[in-house]
């Protein structure tokens, strides 16, 4: 029997990027808030200090910072004729667990989405026509987000200044800036900090890309280039290029994370209470099923509680946002046979995989000396930055040399034909370790009627609730897109002076057994039409207006770029509406 607790104004399910950011905004507005986090509390000091934080076996291989999948896994299959099995080892994607969530172990790669991303359907139909899109694949789904880039720009700006993003602007108020990305959406002002220093591999990529007429620029980074105090009064230090960023927490106060840029301004407020080791089982609804009454959770000792709340914010990892909606019976679950229903619909991922460039022994790359976002990039193939007329796909990828580490267990590139073990393998590793440059292709994932999330009929979690089931494979459109760009990028590898260039590109079938991206998106998408979106343009549930589902679960299709900055901007956008509209007159912010 659950113990009923004193009601509060708002509860967040998860205390990561969206959970801490939303709570800070509401706490400033005077609300009494409880943050429920299923993982443990953890802070830069003492939890992230070296040498323990540089334990590659513990963090990279055994995934110490990730969701405990002995308790709650995700099941996976490529198509709906197969039986899904639980993912027992996180490899393809790495959902975080613990205070700060995945925004602790992220790399700090800090892009904005583009103008066209938010009006994807409108933009593509206007430029290429409906027939073109139909030819790309009848199973594909294109949707607008219900919010435009111009509406989000102030929130992008605010979030970048919160994080202290280090970069070089490419477009300030429509004026193209030297040194930046000429394809980026117009920004109101320069980044808060200058770009990181360019590593040697980036300089080589820059030269190669420039020689082919492309437009290299420094990757925007939330690993800082200099000490910085953000508008919340919290200070960050500069990145020392230690090479332990993604999958790790920053020991230097140099990477934006809830611990560095949000939580210290939140945890000292008397109207905020953090409860860690608390697993939320469901959102409770009243008898009308149109109003949430709060949440039920289990604490670390196994005791069940009911926490009544006027406002429930689902602020978990995108996959867990969708699962929470499904477990709570909020919104109509998607049915792939009829195409009806919205929760679980439009699950998307990210197309990744670029070439490996093996250099001469005279080129010392020093990959161990790196930050999480040290790259030199080109956006010439990003999104819809190039004309797709005459091609057989939509979408695109950014391309860049982004080597985040040279860690000994994970990084040992060898050219094709090398044995995978033994003396010859060791010799090849020694030969190539310091003379190999990786190029990343990273891009759009188109939504498809065939790809979705639902509750698994067989497998349950430690509390007896169904696991989330993922049904996903890359649409052929996305494979054609990635392979087209792979052909172009091979030429960059050669222009860089590569002795051997191993072609990259995404391939089918999608496999969960090797790392690709932690940018799982969609499943509770935002939009203007309640028949094709689970939440409205403010990420408010169409069906239960005092529930908001914040984060990348709201993306109708996935964008070219690493998505954290766009999530931050969307969170500020939603909280702006909650503070200025919803709290004054609780109810639907958009009429059905």
């Amino acid at each position, binding site marked *: 029997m659950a113990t009923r607790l004193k009601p509060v104004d708002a509860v967040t399910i998860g205390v990561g990027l969206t959970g801490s950011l939303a709570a800070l905004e509401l706490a400033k507005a005077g609300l009494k808030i409880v943050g429920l986090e299923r993982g443990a509390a953890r*802070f830069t*000091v003492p939890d992230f200090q070296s040498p323990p934080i540089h334990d590659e076996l513990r963090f990279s291989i055994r995934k110490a910072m990730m969701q405990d999948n002995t308790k709650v896994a995700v099941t996976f299959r490529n198509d709906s004729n197969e039986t899904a099995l639980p993912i027992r080892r996180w490899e393809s994607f790495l959902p975080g667990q613990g205070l700060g969530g995945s925004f602790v172990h992220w790399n700090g790669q800090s892009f904005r989405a583009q103008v066209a991303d938010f009006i994807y359907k409108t933009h593509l139909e206007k430029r290429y026509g409906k027939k073109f899109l139909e030819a790309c694949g009848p199973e594909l789904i294109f949707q607008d987000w219900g919010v435009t880039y111009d509406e989000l720009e102030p929130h992008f700006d605010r979030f970048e200044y919160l994080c202290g993003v280090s970069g070089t602007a490419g477009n300030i108020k429509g004026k193209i800036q030297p040194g930046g990305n000429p394809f980026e959406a117009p920004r109101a002002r320069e980044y808060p900090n200058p770009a990181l220093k360019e590593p040697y591999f980036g300089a080589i990529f820059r030269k190669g890309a420039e020689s082919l007429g492309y437009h290299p620029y420094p990757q925007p980074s939330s690993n800082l280039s200099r000490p910085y105090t953000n508008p919340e009064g919290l200070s960050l230090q*500069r990145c*020392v290029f230690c090479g332990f960023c993604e999958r790790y927490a920053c020991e230097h106060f140099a990477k934006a994370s809830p611990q560095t840029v949000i939580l210290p301004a939140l945890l000292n407020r008397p109207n905020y209470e953090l409860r860690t080791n608390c697993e939320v089982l469901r959102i409770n609804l009243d008898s009308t099923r149109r109003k949430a009454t709060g949440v039920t959770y289990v604490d670390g000792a196994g005791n069940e509680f009911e926490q009544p709340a006027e406002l429930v914010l689902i602020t978990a990892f995108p996959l867990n946002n969708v699962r929470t909606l499904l477990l709570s019976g909020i919104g109509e679950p998607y049915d792939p046979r009829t195409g009806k229903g919205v929760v679980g619909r439009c699950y998307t991922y990210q197309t990744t995989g670029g070439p490996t460039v093996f250099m001469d022994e005279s080129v*010392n790359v020093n990959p161990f000396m790196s930050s999480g976002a040290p790259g030199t990039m080109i956006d010439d193939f990003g999104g819809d930055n190039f004309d797709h007329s005459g091609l057989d796909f939509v979408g695109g990828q950014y391309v860049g040399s982004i080597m985040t580490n040279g860690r000994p267990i994970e990084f040992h590139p060898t050219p094709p034909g090398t044995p995978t073990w033994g003396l010859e393998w060791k010799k090849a590793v020694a030969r190539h370790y*310091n003379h190999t440059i990786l190029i990343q292709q990273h891009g759009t994932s188109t939504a498809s009627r065939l790809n979705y999330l639902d509750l698994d009929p067989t497998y349950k979690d430690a509390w007896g609730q169904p696991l989330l089931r993922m049904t996903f494979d890359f649409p052929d459109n996305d494979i054609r897109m990635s392979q087209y760009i792979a052909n172009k990028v091979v030429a960059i590898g050669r222009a860089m002076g590569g002795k051997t260039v191993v072609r990259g590109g995404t391939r089918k079938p999608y496999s969960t057994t090797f790392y690709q991206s932690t940018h799982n998106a969609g499943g509770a998408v935002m939009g203007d039409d309640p028949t094709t979106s689970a939440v409205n343009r403010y990420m408010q549930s169409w069906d239960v207006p005092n529930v908001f589902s914040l984060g990348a679960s709201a993306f109708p299709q996935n964008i070219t770029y690493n998505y954290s900055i766009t999530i931050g901007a969307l969170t500020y956008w939603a909280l702006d509406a909650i503070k200025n509209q919803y709290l004054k007159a609780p109810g639907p912010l958009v009429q059905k």
Partner: protein
Amino acid sequence: MTAAPVNRLSLAVVVIGSFGLLGIAIAAAQTSPQGDPNRGAVVAAQGVPKAGVPACAQCHAYTGSSDGSGAFPRLAGQSAYYLGKELADYAGGVRSNAIMTPIAKGLGATERADVAAYYAEVKGPFLPLADVSSALFKRGEQLAKVGDESKGLQSCDNCHGPGGAGQPPAIPYLAGQYGPYIAMQLRMWQRGYRRNSDDAMAYIAKRLSDGDIDAVAAYFQQVRRADQLAQDSRK
């Protein structure tokens, strides 16, 4: 760390080259020239009289243990890269000290590299130390190994290596360094007089209280690497 464009492989090449096995030019190394420790030993012992440079040994001792007052840093076993860079910074005016600046200016680039190579090699004894209060030591140990969340301070060992052993070539050891020297340098960074490293140290020093500085200095003075215990002059 970006200020230290030395790489591990090129150093390996240099070692082989110094044995005359390979005539490889050190094309990739952007460091100062590789010094000769034997020539450096002469500079340490006798100085360069014609350039008005006194013997290093007068203050730093021939063994690199310095004189025990803590006014002069221990040099023994510090990386040649680091020592060479500090001398170059003194010579170029980036780091400033009434005694060291004219000395470094008097030495040529080759002599600076030589003497750096010499002091990197020697294993000077650790001189006897006065006891410190255990509260001071514990606070220093806390800052060194763990840091202080309330001040936004990471542990010293993050960069200076486990137990302050250093992360050569760029980052100096602190273990066994004289407390008064450590405290003095932290105060120099704090007040903007020392600026020859990345801004990391100034940022950190500004967050340390006077008590914190004394604690860190007292702690590192007492710490030894396992392989250095034998170098203690009194057990």
